[in-house]
């Protein structure tokens, strides 16, 4: 029994000139606490699929179940969603940014400060609560965005290329932090990326999608030896390049 279950997901976008099928018959299951990646050529509908899982809009056909509950616009499960950029609100302090989810969900105000401080410490930014986002570097801001995502204690984390706007060094550091934090909280997570290395380094399984229309092409199991290592160490491990080659060839074959 999967923690997250997608059944026969089809999705089409309609414009006034055409209907474009972006997802065709997606079926997959992810178990609790698992970290998986979605990779594929551009236009394979990865982000669309993530939005459907998040309940931002319904799929044209098919069902999404999280922890046994069906997801719809009316019944959004507790989803944590990280975007390409941090999208911290520039007019709010870091602390207010971290607790915005709690505020939206109208949970009690007193616990906000405690939660914010604890989470900021967790992501290695203990003293920035009263600062504004513009005073922080890109890597720090993305870490705050991680804290904001975790603040509502989501059942599942959806990471939509959250490292793509960062410089290489910050990216590597943040990868380690994300994996470490999610392991500590036992969170289920889906990472969308077009970086094969990132997918291998961070996840336990890699789902490869093909484009036009987007469908699930193949699933790769990452070897046990790599799963135990931090993303940074995975990249140094001899087994890493074999896995990379396998996925690379498969991705190439999709054209």
């Amino acid at each position, binding site marked *: 029994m999967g923690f997250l279950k997608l059944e026969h997901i089809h999705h089409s976008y309609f414009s006034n000139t055409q209907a474009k099928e972006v997802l065709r018959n997606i079926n997959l299951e992810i178990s609790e606490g698992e970290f998986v990646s979605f990779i594929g050529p551009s236009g394979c509908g990865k982000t669309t699929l993530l939005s459907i899982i998040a309940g931002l809009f319904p799929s044209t056909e098919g069902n999404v179940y999280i922890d046994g509950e069906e997801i719809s616009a009316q019944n959004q499960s507790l989803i944590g969603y990280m975007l390409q*950029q941090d*999208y911290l609100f520039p*007019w709010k302090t870091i602390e207010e940014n971290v607790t915005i989810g709690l505020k*939206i969900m109208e949970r009690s105000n007193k616990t906000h400060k405690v939660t914010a401080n604890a989470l900021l410490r967790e992501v290695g930014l203990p003293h920035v609560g009263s600062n504004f986002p513009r005073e922080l570097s890109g890597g720090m801001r993305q870490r705050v965005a991680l804290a*904001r995502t975790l603040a509502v204690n989501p059942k599942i984390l959806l990471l939509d290329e959250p490292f793509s706007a960062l410089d290489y060094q910050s990216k590597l550091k943040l990868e380690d932090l994300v994996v470490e934090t999610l392991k500590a909280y036992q969170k289920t997570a889906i990472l969308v990326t077009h970086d094969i290395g990132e997918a291998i380094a961070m996840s336990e399984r890699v789902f490869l999608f093909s484009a036009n229309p987007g469908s699930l092409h193949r699933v790769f199991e990452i070897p046990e030896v790599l799963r135990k290592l931090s993303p940074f160490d995975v990249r140094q491990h001899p087994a890493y390049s074999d896995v990379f080659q396998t996925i690379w060839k498969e991705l190439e074959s999709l054209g």
Partner: protein
Amino acid sequence: MDNTLFKQYQQMLKKEKRFVRLYQFIILLVFFGGWELLSRFGWIDRLIFSSPTYVWQTFIEKVSDGSLTLHVGVTLMETVIGFIAGTLLGTLIASVLWWSPLLSKVLDPYLVILNAMPKVALGPILIVALGPGYFSIIAMGALISIIITTIVVYTAFKGVDPNYSKVLQTFGATKWQIFREVILPASFPTIISTLKVNVGLSWVGVIVGEFLVSSKGLGYLIIYGFQVFNFNLVLMSLLIIAFFATIMYQVVELIEKAIIKK
């Protein structure tokens, strides 16, 4: 070394500032001095162009008989209320349009027409409909800025990066929460800049309104001075309008600084 260079730089800035202030003062002096001299030597018609001393005499006279305070008070009150009402209503209509995309599609051509239309041309109708009093003048002051505020603020609402809304949607935010937490605060800079435009527009609306109603206010003084050919009065009113319009603009700038700082 760095320290001395920095001090030099600061001194240069100070010097430049003094230079600017000096020339601003000289322009002011030349304007009023030249005006006075030209008028004294009869190079411009004193009956039409008056002179600073005559304007000053009229000012003292009107202040001492108490009539000026009344007129200034009336005009200021009308302008401030018209300005605030125009900005608030414009923002409110923009919010409604943002709320309902269908409504905004329906109303789009009407907004274009209303925006293109010279609002002061509605003056006579307003006076007939609302009566020749404060209310129709305030309505003029507001009307002149409502449509442009609506259009500019609505465009700002729509221009807010949808990813900010997406962040809140993932937390299950309602439309009202998205508006309050994202759309409105993200549009504050635009709203403030429309405030600056609206200050000027409200003065136009109110002065024209007072031209038409002709009972009280600085607009009335101008039209009255024109009719009895007392241009001392006309020019004095103009200078007072310039003074208070500047003050209002400065207040808006202070508000802007306070908000942007946040």
